[in-house]
């Protein structure tokens, strides 16, 4: 027995001795200084399929960032227009029925075949001929004919005037229609079932290996990176290798970055970030100090209602609910003070704040509600950013920037007395501190939240607290993504914590807001691709129609957009609250010169298609061994 025990102890010790590696590198055979390690957006994704043109194939785990390419990109943070596969912006004829694209010369696929106009033509025609591809519908709607005028020129003849047709090939935010390799797909019998494995790359990297269990994807820089759009536009992507990896829970991402085995994290909770910044002095998000977070994500959260359901069809009720929210309390208790207010129905990014929030601030201050039993009421409060800044200082944080630049220009006043008058004017009654509908039933609201998007649930709970204080019986229902999004599309909700407001890097908001047009209305119970709140507004639709007739760079678009946001404010179809902030922490131990508040040259969204253009800007610190950069 004793001998057996000693044997097992020795065997275990030997086992440990062969395996102990302090701070074990995730890729021990690759010099750490050559490698960038990035958190995978979609989590575990056990796919052997890289045909991202068909519906549902996830592309954010490195596939679109490293391998795919399209004609143009716009960085939402800097607003910079990038001519990628196209040599210059699109050329439209007078009435925008023909779009001509001049392609860059000298771009090659990773298998050595040259990229030409034939690839673009093939991409469009294949999708038109095979219903079921992501862009089959839009191309069939807008493309009458497409052909290669010469080896590097593509001509699109459109079915109707459409000066924004190029947006299909422009990464405005996440992705776009990427170009397919004609020489690969033309040999395929059923392109909708073709897996495209191994994928042929048009981007600056190739897929060297991947985990069939779905936890990592390993990319290697192409030796001919100069023959890609990234190489031609910005130069050599610095990391020789890029690993997209899914570590799992937030705790493990924190541990991995603290061990310098994860350079870029998708998002953390504020609590996880707080732990990380104490564990790793090299970790950073956007601001050097409080509130740290990146607040340029192109969506804003809101409490959305189904406007076909009583009482949310009443504007007075929606405004009353907005005025019953103490947004300062929501931001402090729900988000630890780390959020930017979104009074307009758009995401107040740096760009949109410049175009819309600041210019409309005076209008917001003068905006009046007519409240029966009260009179005229000006609901906007522009002192809120300063109030939150004071709170932050009381907590011991340093606030070095203008509070408006951090927390936004302001939001609606907390005015439960005015809210009460609005509800009474709509026939509501309040007894013993509880609100009752005009028919005498107690007023109950259920707010849907999505646990996978933690801030959706935080907002739901924070707002629920406010409304309960006001006297409404509120329940928060956390549901999984499948149910959350299906109910959104079908209008199967009273209220939900969604993120319907958008932004981008260009002044043309029409691509993002056209979905609010009444033509996209679908009755409750029918699946809606947009306008899931079922808002039908003639004035908004007219403005959207006017915007549609203008070219995307027409400065009149800014005025029309401002008019549209004014309509949103007046009608309050959903209560826009705060921006989708992110703690997308990066580690500056191995790589540096990431974008930041001090140097906002690009978005820090590793999951967007624009990520590939950030890689030439990174610089090695020299702290890790590298085959290319010294040490």
């Amino acid at each position, binding site marked *: 027995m004793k001998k057996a025990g000693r044997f097992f102890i020795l065997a275990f010790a030997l*086992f440990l001795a*062969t*395996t102990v590696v*302090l*701070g*074990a590198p*995730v*890729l*021990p*055979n690759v010099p750490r200084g050559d490698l960038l390690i990035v958190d995978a957006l979609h989590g*575990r994704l*056990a*796919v052997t*399929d890289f045909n991202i043109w*068909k*519906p*549902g*194939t996830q592309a954010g785990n490195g596939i679109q960032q490293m391998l795919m390419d399209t004609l143009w990109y716009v960085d939402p943070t800097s607003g910079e227009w990038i001519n990628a596969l196209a040599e210059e912006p699109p050329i439209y004829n007078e009435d925008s029925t023909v779009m001509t694209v001049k392609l860059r010369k000298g771009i090659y696929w990773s298998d050595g075949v040259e990229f030409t106009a034939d690839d673009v033509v093939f991409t469009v025609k294949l999708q038109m001929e095979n*219903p*079921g591809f*992501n*862009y*089959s*519908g*839009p191309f069939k709607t807008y493309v009458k004919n497409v052909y290669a005028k010469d080896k590097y020129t593509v001509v699109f003849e459109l079915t109707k005037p459409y000066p924004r047709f190029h947006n299909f090939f422009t990464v405005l935010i*996440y*992705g776009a229609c990427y170009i397919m390799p004609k020489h690969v797909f033309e040999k395929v019998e059923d392109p*909708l*079932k073709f*897996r495209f494995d191994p994928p042929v790359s048009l981007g600056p990297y190739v897929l060297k*290996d991947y*985990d*069939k*269990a779905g*936890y990592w994807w390993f990319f290697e820089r192409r030796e001919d990176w100069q023959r890609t759009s990234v190489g031609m536009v910005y130069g050599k992507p610095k990391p020789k290798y890029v690993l997209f*990896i899914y*570590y*799992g829970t937030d*705790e*493990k991402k924190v*541990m991995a970055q603290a*061990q310098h085995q994860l350079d870029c994290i998708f998002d953390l909770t504020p609590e996880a970030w707080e732990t990380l910044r104490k564990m790793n002095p090299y970790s950073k998000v956007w601001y050097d100090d409080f509130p740290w977070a990146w607040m340029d994500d192109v969506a804003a959260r809101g409490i959305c209602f189904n406007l076909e359901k009583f009482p949310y069809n009443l504007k007075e009720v929606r405004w009353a609910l907005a005025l019953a929210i103490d947004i300062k309390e929501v931001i402090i208790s729900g988000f630890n003070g780390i959020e930017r207010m979104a009074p307009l129905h758009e995401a107040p990014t740096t760009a949109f704040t410049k175009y819309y929030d600041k210019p409309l601030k005076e209008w917001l201050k003068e905006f009046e509600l007519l409240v029966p039993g009260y009179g005229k009421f000006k609901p906007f409060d522009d002192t809120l950013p300063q109030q939150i800044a004071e709170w932050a200082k009381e907590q011991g944080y340093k606030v070095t920037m203008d509070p408006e630049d951090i927390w936004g220009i302001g939001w609606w006043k907390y005015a439960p007395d005015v809210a009460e008058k609005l509800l009474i004017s709509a026939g509501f009654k309040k007894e013993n501190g509880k609100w009752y509908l005009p028919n005498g039933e107690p007023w109950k609201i259920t707010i849907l939240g999505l646990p996978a998007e933690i801030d959706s649930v935080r907002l739901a709970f924070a707002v629920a607290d406010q409304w309960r204080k006001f006297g409404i019986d509120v329940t928060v229902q956390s549901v*999984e*993504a*499948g*149910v959350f*999004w*299906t*109910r*959104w*599309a*079908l209008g*199967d909700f009273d209220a939900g914590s969604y993120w319907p407001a958008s932004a981008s890097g260009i002044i043309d908001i029409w691509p993002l807001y*056209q*979905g609010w047009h009444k*033509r*996209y209305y679908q009755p409750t119970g029918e*699946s809606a*691709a*947009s306008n899931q709140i079922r808002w039908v507004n003639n004035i908004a639709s007219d403005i959207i129609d006017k915007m549609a007739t203008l070219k995307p760079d027409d400065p009149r678009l800014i005025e029309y957009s401002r008019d549209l946001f004014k309509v949103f404010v007046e009608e309050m179809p959903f209560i826009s609250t705060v921006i989708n902030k992110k703690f997308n922490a990066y580690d500056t131990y191995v790589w540096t010169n990431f974008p930041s508040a001090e140097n906002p040259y690009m978005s820090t969204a590793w999951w967007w298609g624009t990520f590939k253009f950030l890689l030439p800007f990174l610089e090695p610190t020299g702290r890790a061994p590298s085959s290319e950069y010294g040490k």
Partner: protein
Amino acid sequence: MKVLWKYIIPRIIQYLVVIFVGITITFFAPRFTPLDPVQMTLNRVMSYGAQYLDAETLEHLKETLADLYGLKGNIFEQYVRFWKRLLKGDFGPSLVIFPTPVMEVISTSLPWTVGLLIVSALLSWIIGNFIGGIAGYFNEKRWARVLSVIAASIYPIPYYFMAIILVIVFGYLIPVFPIFGGLSIGIQPSFSWHFVVDLLKHAFLPALSIIIVGIGWWFLSMKALSSSVKSEDFVVYAEITGIPESKILFSYVMKNSLLPQITNLALQIGGIFNGALVTEYVFSYPGMGQTLYMAVTNGDFNLMMGISTMAVVAIATATLLIDLLYPLIDPRIRYQ
């Protein structure tokens, strides 16, 4: 012959009925939820940069997807099509990872689950029952009481808490084990010491977490059983007749106490096809639990049915085998 008609055949019929009912329930249950796989795919298409679709385009895409996913027709037509495919061993394509066949998705995850859970289940069963049996027999001894306190303290610890502690201690504070995956990046399965060590290194913490919690349960249950059996007449008689204590312990007490534990083990092993979701989530272990979770949250009806069907068949088969083998283990059943 009598045994065949009175014992075996009724159990086989029951087995087939259980499988049929179980599979039918797994077919209908997701379809009565608000999940809509076509809508889920449309949501993904929308969020990834495709322009808003007008009503006509949307309708066309929905029809195409329903056709691709095999969701056309009413629910009974889909049910009949499902059985026709199932009897050929085909669960159709995964809807989330379209068009990867469900069996291919399952075959990627299943070996990890089977390997981890069978080994963990067996080890915790053997260790827990062995120590629990001895502790139950010598329940008046101090060391037995100490072990009971330890087991009773470990058993109620929430599994997630235990798992995270192991990750933090052995993956970060004393980083001797990796904190994610089933193998190191780049390692391919092979018959080599390097592969085996790497596999064991990645499996150690997940297995340890399951074993620690499992031992608690087996120990406490076995201790209770052996304490009870120890007081039975045949054991007292054996002691009086001077049979050696070790023989009484192993041949009389433990052997009889193990009978219900064997049934529980069989059911536990049958249930491994559901995976261990929390284990796999905490340790990022590539098993069936996360695959099933992904299927459920994304409305992947085919993948849900594939995994659930295998789980139903596995548990029903385990139950049937135990039922058929029990007479060989327990003479009382054999005499009946």
